[in-house]
């Protein structure tokens, strides 16, 4: 299909990248999964825009871009509330909106969360690396948005005002509690250290990014830090030499050599991805069964929403 120029990038924002669900199946060759940090908000943006769930969106970080439409498009913005505006007027999020050729989309004052997703009905054009359009700068797959460039896509017209009911819209707090499945390096931590971990309130360091969230609080000391490197999952909580945990996020390396005290459950990863610098986080343990139950509930919600969307 022929692509069409849809946005002129006037300002790129702090970090705006193309993201989809990431690269699966190549971790054994060292290829990071990458992909949207908040997969829940990302998928809802696509559902609202009438796209397939894995369609690439723009992931906007804290300071949004300024884009001028080069064609008429339907978009949906979800995730962090960075006060999206069209021609200066604040527009609703979690809902489809129409942008006419020449209109300017920009962002105002930070309200809540960290990452917004801009889905365009029909999808953005972007180079595919190993089956995904996700930008992963470190691996050499794509680059963040730059001013003076043009974004192309395959715009299709969708109705405006197709939105998510308010009760389903997540609220991003500055202080969160997230559930953790303990392990796998259970021998590396004493009961006292585990207790300390679950009883501490951690602060998110400003030096947190798409690779990992660096946390600060009381030091955790592994009894055995000498482990063989192994595969590291999304949400893995590693304890490096300085005793300050790092939650491994979308752009993490495929393997790592620090002991891990636990893994944030999949259903709670969005809370982490939307936690602002200096935000607070506390952990509590859950069973694998409970973690899987919550993930399946979330996936079922998205499936129902996707089916329901077809009636509009």
């Amino acid at each position, binding site marked *: 299909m022929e692509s069409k120029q849809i946005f002129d990038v006037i300002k790129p924002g702090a970090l705006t990248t193309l993201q989809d669900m990431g690269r*699966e*199946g*190549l*971790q*054994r*060759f*060292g*290829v*990071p999964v990458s992909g949207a940090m908040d997969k829940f908000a990302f998928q809802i943006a696509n559902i609202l825009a009438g796209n397939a769930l894995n369609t690439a969106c723009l992931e906007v970080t804290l300071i949004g871009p300024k884009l001028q439409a080069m064609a008429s498009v339907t978009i949906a913005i979800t995730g962090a509330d960075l006060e999206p505006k069209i021609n200066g007027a604040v527009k609703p999020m979690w809902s489809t909106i129409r942008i006419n050729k020449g209109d300017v989309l920009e962002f105002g004052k930070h309200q809540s969360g960290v990452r917004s997703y801009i889905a365009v009905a029909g999808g953005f054009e972007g180079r595919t*690396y*190993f089956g995904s359009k996700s930008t992963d700068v*470190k*691996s*050499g797959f794509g680059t963040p948005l730059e001013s003076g460039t043009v974004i192309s896509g395959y715009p299709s017209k969708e109705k405006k005002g197709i939105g998510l009911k308010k009760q389903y819209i997540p609220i991003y707090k500055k202080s969160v509690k997230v559930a953790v*499945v303990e*392990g*796998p390096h*259970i021998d590396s931590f004493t009961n006292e250290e585990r207790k300390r971990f679950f009883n501490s309130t951690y602060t998110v360091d400003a030096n947190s990014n798409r690779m990992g969230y660096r946390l600060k609080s009381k030091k955790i000391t592994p009894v055995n830090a000498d482990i*063989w*490197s*192994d*595969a590291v*999952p*999304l*949400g*893995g909580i590693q304890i490096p030499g300085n005793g300050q945990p790092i939650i491994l996020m979308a752009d993490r*390396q*495929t*393997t*790592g050599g620090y002991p*891990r005290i*636990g*893994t*944030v*459950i*999949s259903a709670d990863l969005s809370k982490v991805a939307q936690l602002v610098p200096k935000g607070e986080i506390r952990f509590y343990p859950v069973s*694998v*069964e409970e*973690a*899987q139950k919550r*993930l*399946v509930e979330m*996936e079922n919600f998205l499936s129902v929403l996707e089916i329901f969307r077809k009636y509009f």
Partner: protein
Amino acid sequence: MLGITAIAVGDSAIKVNFAGKVSYELNAAIQMYSKKLEEASIPGVVEWVPAFNSVTVYYQPKQVSFHILIKKLYDLHEVPISSEKIKSRIIQVPVLYGGEYAPDLQRVAEHSQLEINEVIDIHQNQEYLIYMIGFLPGFPYLAGLDKRIATPRLEEPRGKIYAGAVGIANEQTGIYPVESPGGWNIIGKTPLRLFDRTEFLFQTGDYVKFHRVNKDKFLELESQIKNNRFKVSIVER
């Protein structure tokens, strides 16, 4: 047979640990297990990552639950392998040692108290097993570096190391597949590409054999690779 233990890694992965010392034998058991995983194609399993003494299996809980999958993973270990013995591949990697591409060769020689030529001979006189691929796409963790040339990482990592750089960090040697920051001692450069748009040169369990080429040969290989007229030498045994 070597024993395994499986443990949950969050809600979407299970780590299968292999008992025993990290060795060629243990690596062979891990390769065997990975092969069986491939043949079994268990519904819900997305991918798996072999490492030094483990294989981590990623899966979709909506398709298969933890309890069902962990049982299958234990059972799989007992299944006799259907295909013939797993072959190892030996991949020849040409390297231009020294000169402009080797800012740390002198450092390695000084640290080892050896002549530069001795360092090169020791480095290329060895087949290195790929225990794991990680850190960067296609980056092989090669074990078995001769202790005589083992050299600690740079105190200040470099901001930029070029693709194809061959380096030493303690008792490991490796190749940078893409430009990246890094703290390894760089002793040479290979013209080979470790991956292209569709394929990866190495897989876990392969052996890497470095061999020295001069500048003319390096440039010739580089141009052949650029024009897709070069075939990497891979021997199976």
